[in-house]
C-alpha cells in the first residue's frame, strides 16, 4: 500500500466531508459523529452527484441530488436502490489521515 497523507482529521467537520482532488476525479473523505473516517469516490452511482455535499448520518451519506443513501463502509446504496461506489482505504495515525493511492492507480489502469 502506498499511503498518501491528505491532512488532519480536524480539517473535516464531524458529520461532514471534504474532497481530495486526484487525477481521476475527486475522492470524498467523510468524518462521522464518532470520528470514524471513510473515503469513497465523490460520484453517486445514480447520476454522479457529489456525495461529499450530502448530509452524513451514522455511517451513511445521502446524495444531495436525488437522496440516494450510500453506505460509507461498503460504498453500496442502501434501501431499495441498487448501485455502488468504490471505497478507498483510509489510515489514521494520531491526527493525520492517509489514503491508499494504489486504489487510485489501479482504478486508473
Amino acid at each position: 500500500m502506498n499511503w498518501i497523507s491528505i491532512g488532519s482529521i480536524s480539517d473535516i467537520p464531524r458529520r461532514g466531508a471534504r474532497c481530495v482532488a486526484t487525477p481521476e476525479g475527486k475522492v470524498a473523505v467523510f468524518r462521522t459523529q464518532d470520528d470514524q473516517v471513510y473515503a469513497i469516490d465523490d460520484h453517486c452511482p445514480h447520476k454522479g452527484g457529489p456525495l461529499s455535499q450530502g448530509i452524513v448520518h451514522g455511517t451513511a451519506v445521502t446524495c444531495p441530488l436525488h437522496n440516494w443513501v450510500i453506505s460509507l463502509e461498503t460504498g453500496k446504496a442502501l434501501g431499495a436502490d441498487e448501485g455502488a461506489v468504490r471505497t478507498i482505504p483510509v489510515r489514521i495515525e494520531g491526527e493525520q489521515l492517509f489514503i491508499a493511492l494504489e486504489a487510485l492507480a489501479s482504478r486508473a489502469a
Partner: protein
Amino acid sequence: MSEKLVIIGNGMAPGRMLEHLFEQAPGRYQVTIFNAEPRVNYDRIMLSPVLSGEKAYEEIIIHGDGWYIANNITLYKGHKIVAIDRTAKTVTSDHGVIEPYDKLVIATGSVPFIIPVPGHDLPGVLTYRDLDDVQAMMLAAQSRAKAVVIGGGLLGLEAAAGLNAQGMDVTVLHVMPTLMERQLDPAAGYLLQRAVEQRGIKVITKANTKAITGNGKVGQVELADGTVIPATLVVMAVGIRPNSALAKEAGIAVNRGIVVDAGMRSNDPDIYALGECAEVNGQVYGLVAPLYEMARVAASQLAGNEAAAFVHMDTPTKLKVTGIDLFSLGDFAEGEDRQEIVLRDAAAGVYKRLVLKDDRIIGTVLYGETADGAWFNDLKKKQTDISEMRDTLIFGQSYQGGAPLDPMAAVAALPDDAEICGCNGVCKGKITGAITAKGLASLDDVRAHTKASASCGSCTGLVEKLMVLTIGDKYNPAAVQPMCGCTTLGHDEVRRLIIAKSLKTIPAVMQELEWTTSCGCAKCRPALNYYLVCDWPDDYADDYQSRFINERVHANIQKDGTYSVVPRMWGGVTNAAELRAIADVVDKFEVPMVKVTGGQRIDMLGIRKEDLPAVWADLGQAGFVSGHAYAKGLRTVKTCVGSDWCRFGTQDSTGLGIRIEKFMWGSWTPAKVKMAVSGCPRNCAEATCKDVGVICVDSGYEIHFAGAAGLDIKGTEVLGMVKTEDEALEHIVALTQMYREQGRYLERIYKWAKRIGIPEIKRQIMDDAEKRQAYYERFVFSQKFAQVDPWSERVSGKDKHEFRPMASVGFAQAAE
C-alpha cells in the same frame, strides 16, 4: 397505427371510461380531450364539501396532470368544441384547433336550468355546476351578506349548507310543498326542512319566484305572493338538462339527451355519447353510479367488446351535508298494491320507511339513521322475499335473528356481493379480495385499487370496517405519519415536545425523544434544525451539518455539481451599477448561463464551488447580498411598478414589496416562501398564486395567502383587507410567524393552511389583535439573529473548508 379517439368533455364519466379503456386495450387509441373548463378531471360530487370549506380543490382531483402525461393524452384545457364535421370526421374548438377522429365520444354533461324570470341574467345570479361556480360563490360569501338559493333539491340544499358554512345568511326557495320531493316522501321532507332550519337556513316552500331585481346587480328576489327577500347572491339550482346542442347541430339524433343504444353508440356508428348528456332507453341520468356504468360499457365497446350493454338501475340518493343523514332509493309512492313499514322516533330525529310490493322491498327512505341503507339496497336488488323477517325488518340488519348485532358484526354478516360503494358499484367481496390479494393496509390503497369510497366518500365507514375485519390490528386509521424512520413521533408531536421539554439541541431532541438511530437521517435532521432555529432563535446554534447542501453553501446545487448564484434584488428592482457588477462577474468567472428567474431575479448558473466566495466578494462590492434562492425561507417579493409609473396603480406596490422584503429577508421558514405585491386588481405581479400576496386597491391592501403555482396550482385565499402599509406589513409578518411556528418542515403555506383551516388562521391574524401582535413581536425578535448576510460572512472566512479541497494528491505519481 393507433386509432384517434377524441373526447369532448373531461368530466367524471369520460375519465372513468379512459381508465377502463387503458386497462382493456392499452395503446389502441391515441386520445385527445377537449375540456371547456380550464382544468383536469375532478370529483364533482365533492363540490359541496369544497363550498362548505371542508375540502380543498386539490383534494378532489381525480386525474392530475401527471395522469394525462403518463397516458399520452393530449388535453386541451379551456377549449370548447364549437363544431363536429361528421363527413370530414373532425371537431373544431373555439380556439381554432381542428382535430380529426376515428372515434368520437361526446361527454358534454349537462347545463343548469335557468328559470327565465325577469332579472335572471343580473350579475350576482349563479348556478351550481362546476368549480368556477363554487369559487364565485365562495368569493361572494366573503361579503357575509344575504343569499337566496332557488331550488330545494339535492344541489340547492348542498349549496345552501355550503354558503351557510361560509357565513352567509341563506334563504332557500322551493316551489313544491316539501323539500327534495323527488327523493323523499313528505314526512322525511319535513324532518329535513327542520334540520336545515336548525342550522339557521330559512326555508320557504311553495315559493314561486316572480322576479330578481336590483340596480345593475342582484338586490332582491320577489315572489308571486308579494314577498320580497333581500339578497346580493342568487344561486339557481332548479335542475339540469342534458347538454346536447352540439350533437344536434351536427345532425346526431337528439331527444331529451343524445340518443344512444345500450352500447352508448349514437346513430352515427363512430360517435358515442355518455354521461349526463346521453339518453338510453328514454332515460337520462344525473347520479354518478349509472354514469360510471355507462363509462364501463363505452370502454368495453371501444375496446371491441360489442356485447357490453347498459342496464337501467336504481341508485340511492344521499345528501352530502355534514350532520344530515339521508338515504333514499327506488319507488316510494303509495299505491293499492303496496304496503309500507314506517318507524318514527321523533326525539332522535329518525324516520324510516320501507315500501313493499309482494313481500319485496321496492323503495326505501331513511332519515337520521342510514347505516342499514346498504342492506336494504341489497335486499331490493336481489328481490329477497322478506316475509320471514317482516316484523323486525325496519329495525335493520342488526336485529335479524334475535339479539342485536354490533355494527362490526353487521358488516361481517353482509354477503360478498352486497354493494358497499354505490358511486362506483363496488361490492364487499371485491374490497375484501383486494385487501387480501394485494396486502392493502391503508384507506388510500383500497381507494386506489378498488375505487371504493373514492367518490363521495359516504361509505368510508363501511370500507374501514371491512379493513378491520380483513386485516385486524394492522389497519390503524388514526396512525400518525412519523417524521422519518428514526422515530415513531410525527412532526407536530416533536414540535410540541421541543417546547414542552425545552430541548435546545439536536442531540437533546434525539436523546429525550428516544430516536432509534445514533444521529438521525437526511429527513429528520434538517427538520429538527429548522424547528430549533425557529423556536430558540437566541439560544440555538444552527447546525450546518444538518442543513441541505444549498443552505450550507448558500447557493443552488445543479445536476453537474456546479452551483447557481442569485443575488437579492429588492422587490425585483435593479440599476445600472448592479447590472454592470453582474456582467463583470459573468465575464470574470466565465459564467456559462445567465437567466432571469420567475421571481424577478437574475440567476448565474454553472459556477464552480471553489469560485463561490470570490463571486460573492465581487457581488458584495456592488452592494449585493444573498438572494436566498436556495433557502427554506423568504425567497422573493415580486412587485409591479405601482402608482409610481402605472396609470392604473392605486398604491406604491413596489415600495411595499421592497419594504416587506427588507423586513423579512433572512428568516427561515418550514418551506420556501414566495410573495408578491400588485398595485391594482389587474395583478401584474401575479400575487394570487403566491404563498403570501397583496393586491392594492384604492381603499387599502387586500392580503392574500395560501396560493400555489408549482406541483399544485391553487389560487390564494383572502386573509383580509387593511387600510395602511403598516398594517399590511404587521399582518403579513404575523401570518408568516404563525406558519413558522406551526408548519411541518417542507410543508408549504397552502398545505399548512389546509390542515389548520382558513377560518382559524383568519381568526388569529385578522380578529385577534393580541395574538397578531405577539406573533409579530416573536418574528421581529428572531430577525435580530437571522438577518446576517451569509455571503459576506463567507467572504470574511466563515466555513472556508467548504469551498476548497483538503488536499490534491496523485498528480505527481500520475506524471511518472
